[in-house]
């Protein structure tokens, strides 16, 4: 809807947009000024560090907060979970897209219904089970939980995408004597790139930022991922907000860099993700 606007309306619109943009950037700005000031510097957070830039907070975030280790842990958990969610999701979607029996339709509906389960609603039984399995404070424990919570949406996406592909190529492969496995790995898998980008971005961002379950499952600082690590550093350093800000900024950097380079994929993926 492009209607011509008068001058006052245009100014009003620009002012409104400017206000929102400033509002969205302010938390980052305030964190930056706070992170660059010494603890004894009680000047307003609105002011940049006038006495010179202080980098001690970043050092403290790295040495006391162990932020680099947490970033590495997040990278491992996110990387492995994302690969598994994509691969297992694509596999599971294949029969759901290509063999439409009553049973498979029911299986598809069940998987879709799993999306509705809020993570905290199963905290008690899940944590109890993970303790019995000795999976608390392990990579595999958190990865298993991340895979199980992100897999339903992934299967949904892959199923929808495969249904939109013409079946004739797969049939030709079958006629040529390819087994179901060969058809899946050699014919279907290579054409799933667009939907894989979507699933990978949604799963990657969500796993990287996950806090609710990770904060219970990962309590050992050596294995903690970013979000629980920041939260615990923050509550431990409540009198030293400079260090907490520095840790936050360090943790957000990898996502920012990825967003900067892959912005188009991010937004496209998120739109697709929301239109499920």
């Amino acid at each position, binding site marked *: 809807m492009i209607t011509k606007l008068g001058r006052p309306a245009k100014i009003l*619109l620009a002012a409104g947009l400017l206000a929102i943009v400033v509002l969205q950037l302010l938390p980052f700005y305030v964190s930056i000024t706070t992170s660059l000031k010494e603890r004894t510097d009680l000047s307003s957070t609105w002011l940049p560090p006038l006495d010179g830039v202080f980098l001690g907070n970043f050092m403290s975030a790295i040495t006391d907060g162990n932020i680099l280790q947490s970033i590495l842990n997040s990278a491992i958990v996110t990387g492995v979970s994302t690969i598994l969610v994509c691969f297992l999701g694509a596999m599971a979607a294949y029969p759901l897209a290509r063999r439409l029996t009553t049973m498979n339709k029911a299986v598809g509906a069940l998987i879709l219904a799993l999306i509705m389960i809020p993570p905290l609603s199963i905290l008690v039984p899940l944590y109890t089970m993970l303790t019995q399995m000795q999976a608390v404070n392990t990579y595999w424990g958190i990865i298993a939980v991340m895979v199980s919570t992100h897999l339903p949406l992934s299967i949904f996406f892959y199923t929808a995408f495969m249904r939109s592909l013409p079946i004739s190529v797969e049939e030709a492969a079958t006629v040529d004597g390819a087994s179901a496995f060969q058809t899946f790995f050699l014919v279907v898998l290579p054409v799933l790139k667009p939907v894989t980008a979507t699933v990978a971005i949604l799963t990657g961002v969500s796993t990287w930022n996950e806090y609710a379950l990770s904060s219970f499952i990962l309590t050992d600082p050596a294995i903690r991922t970013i979000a629980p690590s920041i939260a615990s550093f923050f509550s431990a350093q409540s009198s030293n907000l400079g260090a907490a800000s520095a840790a936050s900024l360090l943790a957000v950097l990898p996502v920012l860099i990825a967003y900067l380079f892959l912005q188009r994929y991010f937004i496209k993926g998120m739109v697709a993700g929301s239109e499920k």
Partner: protein
Amino acid sequence: MSQVTTLPRAGIRRRPRRGRGAGINVFYLPALLIFAIFTIYPLLNGITLSFTNWNGYSAARDVVGAANYLRLFEDETFRMVLLNTFIFGIGSTVIQQILGLGLAVALDRPLRGRTAIRAIIYLPVLVSPVIMGTMYYLFFQYNNGALNDITTLFGGERIAWLSDSQTAVLIIVLVNSLQFVGISMIIYLAGLQSIPTVYYEAANLDGAGAWQQFRHITIPLLQPAFATSIVLNLIGGLKLYDIIQVLTGGGPGYSTNSVSTLVGVAYFDNQSAGYASAMGVVLFLIIVVFTLGLNTLLNRRRLEQQ
């Protein structure tokens, strides 16, 4: 299409419509195994536990029937937390729809720096709510907080923003809304771009004004976008956890908890695992009822309009 191309080979295919034999179903077995262990078993076990008085660590537990659920009804803390949960869900949804739609309409116009503005508004969506929460804490904290620096600058008193439960609940709603308004904006932008411009051209010819066009073309044709965005925001708000933990930790007292955060408190702090399981079941039911109810409601409205 595919039928035409496969016709000549129809003779060799035993199941012409299904394409593949039942053996292909092994492909979803790994996923089903994971769900069975890490989702479905805990869900069912949680329902079982919700009928016991288990404390979370000892071997002893007694079946207490519906006692935990009856206790939930009488528990004033839980009632307050339930109210908070609805405020988080509905409050965020309302703010995000108004702001998100407004931004989408504004940014659908040709405008210098449009891509950059969209990218900035969307940016917080990608940041962990834990980190957004820490950043916003610098705003609302009592000493040296950015907001109190402004109030004192104008000769006012420092305000304990996060120590007053009502203010704190509203702040949590606001922070959550601002962080995720980018999602609504993007959904509405995609919706706006899918409306054919000929409708507006026709309306222009008929002399319809900007408001009339918005009311009678844009709003009805955005129905699917409304449905998507509302359901997504509502579920996000009802499940709210991270921002509460960082901004207030559920305090003062229990006054800013959501059902999600209270589950953790009941389980680990109060050692009432059975009671916490019952809360979990209620939380699950709330989400199911809202998701299915809204989907039915919004789909019916869409059908009526067609």
